[in-house]
């Protein structure tokens, strides 16, 4: 396994890296997602909004292989995919930064960065020294130099944890990054840093799907805004061609 | 852990039920129907008690059934209630809990079913005859054999002796240990080291090894030799010597387990006080047959007088608590001179393999 993916940005004719068609998911009798279709492009931040239970988390889990869809197709980088586990989606370059289930408190920062993909030496033992060095370098490059790679994650603040989660996604040179409420429970200064980070990611050609409850953040960051309502797609708008009122109406199901 | 016991005994019960089903076909259809409600069937000794009693009973023309209380007083009460309802001609008990079983015995008394006890007894109710081993005799013989052989080996009765005893809340463990202590107390040069264990081979091994490492022992005795570990511990210390060799540590036990008989044969174990499980089961089976026939009943304390019966000459004593008679079969030492005797339970058990 190559340690880093050799990155080739979206190569679709119309620039779409991810295309989703008619994606549906039921849990017992509850329809969590109902025939949702959308596209995500490289060099673009797609804002994803919707009320609680609108299907945002389910959508992320379906695309990243945590759950299997009941219907619909997912085309990633021109190939139809059916990820059985998150491991498969990560190997293709899809990273998810979850709002709560991302990190292992008992482990140190470097190990969380490399979680599930520990680097190994030639004798197949884990390469602790190299991972610590690379984690330090990564944190430095993100302006998080004060964070020690050997600090135990359980001891970190909310913002620091989020930074670790984001740096993990970045280390692996993902092509598509889902961010589920990356700014929740953060101090104002930290929110600014995260939004700045998202902007920087877009510059590098990555497709970012950014979930937030805060419409101001969405409007200041996203290129397009996609709205879910009760598991269905309520609409997709260019940020410049809409306003908060319209988005709120879509979120509430008013047409 | 209760659930554990239920499940583990269910397995044995299944095996036994099979045996009974097969055995049942050969039973005399016109004979008396008798039942033994065993406290447990999870060790060779309890199985030998039950199977021998059943074999002898059937050889006398009775229809003998075994049930297993699986070390549960509740399960035991249920088995008794079923047996009473089915109207057996006699019920033989061996209670898990002597107090709880008293209630069951009284119910059988009310139903007019005679009750007998094998190996252990209830605390009350009317019991026609209790047949069991004499714990005092077991402990006394184990200790006397130990002392005698220490003298033979060392020239004097002196030195450190290890006694592995069971938990003191168990009647058998306490009576045996008290008898051992009483004998050893007569020999002032014997220093007794008493160690508690819970009948596990790991404890037998570890305690023997630790004590023998820190002390120069002349002898070892124990509440039951059904549990292995002592000889292996001595072996691992290089202290397992044959009888008569210099440095031999005298070892005597109680019960005379089949494995011990082999060790005795190899001169690696001095002696064991026999718990005559085959003997008292045989006695009880015969007595029940005679009792039900009406041909013989014990009427007075003292040696039983019924020539030809296997219990002839054995001392009967009145048991106040159970308003009936009891006999305690005395132990006898087993050593190199008699270890191949086929009537020893350790040899008799081989026919059940």
């Amino acid at each position: 396994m190559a340690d880093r993916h050799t990155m080739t940005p979206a190569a679709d004719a119309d620039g779409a890296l991810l295309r989703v068609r008619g994606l549906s998911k039921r849990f017992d009798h509850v329809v969590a997602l109902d025939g949702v279709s959308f596209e995500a492009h490289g060099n673009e931040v797609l804002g994803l909004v919707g009320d609680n239970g609108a299907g945002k988390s389910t959508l992320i889990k379906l695309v990243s292989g945590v759950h299997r869809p009941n219907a619909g197709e997912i085309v990633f980088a021109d190939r139809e995919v059916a990820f059985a586990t998150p491991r498969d989606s990560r190997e293709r370059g899809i990273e998810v930064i979850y709002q709560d289930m991302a990190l292992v408190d008992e482990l140190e920062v470097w190990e969380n960065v490399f979680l599930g993909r520990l680097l190994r030496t030639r004798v197949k033992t884990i390469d602790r020294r190299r991972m610590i060095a690379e984690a330090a370098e990564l944190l430095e490059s993100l302006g998080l130099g004060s964070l020690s790679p050997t600090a135990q994650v359980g001891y970190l603040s909310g913002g620091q944890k989020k930074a670790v989660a984001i740096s993990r996604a970045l280390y692996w040179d993902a092509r598509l990054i889902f961010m589920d409420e990356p700014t929740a429970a953060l101090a104002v200064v930290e929110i600014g840093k995260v939004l700045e980070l998202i902007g920087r990611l877009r510059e590098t050609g990555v497709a970012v799907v950014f979930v937030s409850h805060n419409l101001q953040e969405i409007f200041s960051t996203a290129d397009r805004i996609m709205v879910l309502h009760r598991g269905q797609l309520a609409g997709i708008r260019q940020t410049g061609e809409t306003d908060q009122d319209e988005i709120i109406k879509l979120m509430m199901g008013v047409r | 852990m209760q659930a554990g016991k239920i499940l583990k005994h269910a397995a044995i019960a299944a095996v036994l039920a099979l045996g009974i089903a097969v055995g049942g076909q050969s039973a005399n259809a016109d004979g008396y129907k008798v039942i033994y409600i065993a406290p447990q069937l999870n060790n060779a000794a309890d199985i030998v008690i039950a199977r021998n009693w059943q074999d002898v009973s059937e050889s006398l023309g009775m229809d003998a059934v075994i049930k297993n209380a699986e070390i549960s007083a509740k399960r035991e009460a249920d088995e008794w209630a079923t047996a009473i309802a089915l109207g057996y001609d006699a019920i033989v008990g061996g209670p898990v809990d002597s107090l709880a079983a008293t209630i069951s015995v009284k119910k059988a008394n009310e139903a007019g079913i005679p009750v007998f006890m094998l190996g252990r007894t209830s605390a009350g109710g009317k019991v026609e005859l209790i047949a069991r081993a004499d714990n005092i005799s077991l402990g006394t013989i184990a200790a006397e054999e130990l002392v005698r052989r220490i003298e033979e080996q060392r020239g004097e009765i002196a030195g450190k002796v290890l006694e592995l005893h069971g938990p003191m809340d168990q009647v058998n463990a306490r009576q045996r240990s008290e008898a051992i202590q009483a004998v050893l107390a007569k020999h002032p040069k014997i220093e007794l080291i008493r160690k508690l264990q819970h009948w596990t081979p790991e404890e037998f091994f570890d305690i023997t090894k630790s004590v023998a490492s820190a002390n120069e022992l002349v002898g070892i005795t124990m509440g039951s030799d059904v549990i292995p570990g002592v000889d292996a511990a001595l072996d691992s210390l290089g202290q397992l010597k044959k009888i008569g060799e210099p440095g031999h540590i005298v070892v005597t036990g109680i019960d005379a387990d089949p494995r011990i008989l082999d060790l005795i044969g190899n001169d690696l174990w001095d002696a064991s006080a026999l718990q005559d499980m085959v003997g008292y089961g045989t006695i009880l089976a015969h007595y029940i047959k005679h009792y039900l026939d009406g041909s013989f009943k014990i009427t007075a304390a003292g040696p039983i007088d019924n020539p030809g019966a296997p219990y002839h000459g054995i001392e009967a004593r009145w048991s106040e608590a159970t308003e009936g008679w009891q006999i305690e079969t005395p132990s006898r030492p087993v050593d190199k001179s008699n270890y191949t005797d086929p009537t020893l339970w350790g040899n008799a058990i081989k026919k059940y393999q």
Partner: protein
Amino acid sequence: MTRFLLRNAVWIVLLFTTIAFVAVEPRLLSVRIFINVLEHSSILGILVIGMIFCLLAGRFDLSSESTLGFTALVGAWMVSTNPFFGSGWQLPPALVIVLMLGMGAGVGCLNSFFIIKLRVNAFIVTLAMLLALRGFTYVFTNANTMYDLPPSFAALGGYSIGGLLPISVILFLSLFVVSQFVLSYTTFGRDLYAIGGNREAAFAAGIRVDRRTLTAFVLSGMLGALAAWVLAGRLQAVTINLGQGMVFEVFAAAVIGGVSLAGGKGTMMGPLGGVLLLGVITTGLSVMPISSFWVDAVRGVLILAAVVLWRVTEIFEERWRTGTP
């Protein structure tokens, strides 16, 4: 420094307990007794290693003591040369050992099948497995003691180098070193921490949670079988109640050694201290001229004290953690 002391509290307790015992009973201060402690600890130690693999993954294996009892008895039954109580097959020891380890692995597979695939609670599954195995143990052997084991079969548990240092001691100490290495330096070991620490995060990060859990249970089963082999050789005989009740000491050693029952936290070296502490207590009490009536009470109180002490150090560590930004 404080943190280091807290993390290694068990070794300090071990040191003080040993000193206290030796002060009361100077005869304890001998190479022979020291080795007895190690030998006594070896069976418990091997089981504890298996339990730690499961505990770190956030599961536990109550069945290991009966895996020990079952494989020991069936193994002895197959290999015994006794004409009455064995199977009569007298299989070659090497084959029997392979079969025993295979049975241990099989128990681990069954456990994890129920836990992972059928999602039954690990407590229920391994408890049921414990009961079932004990039941089978009776069925197999007619409740007899198995003995007359061939010397080559008994060597691992019974042979001592120079008549003093048992191979089982070397085996058990090296197993601890190897498994500590596995935990610290292999992806399997690290993945266990991740799984026990946060199973969803581990899964989302692409760790093969099920496969790792299966491996932990299989290891636990095989270590149970290995302990069975050692113990059978040491006792030169196997009874149906072999290993019964050991699960309590296994948990005690793990907890005293700082392994979290919630998963994801602990080492091999801490519980090694716990195992040795229990060994010192047991061996010390059997050498000391203490009244038999007191042994159980003293033992229980000492174990309780060790567990409480561990909890106190943990509380201190939590304070230290929350008090630091």
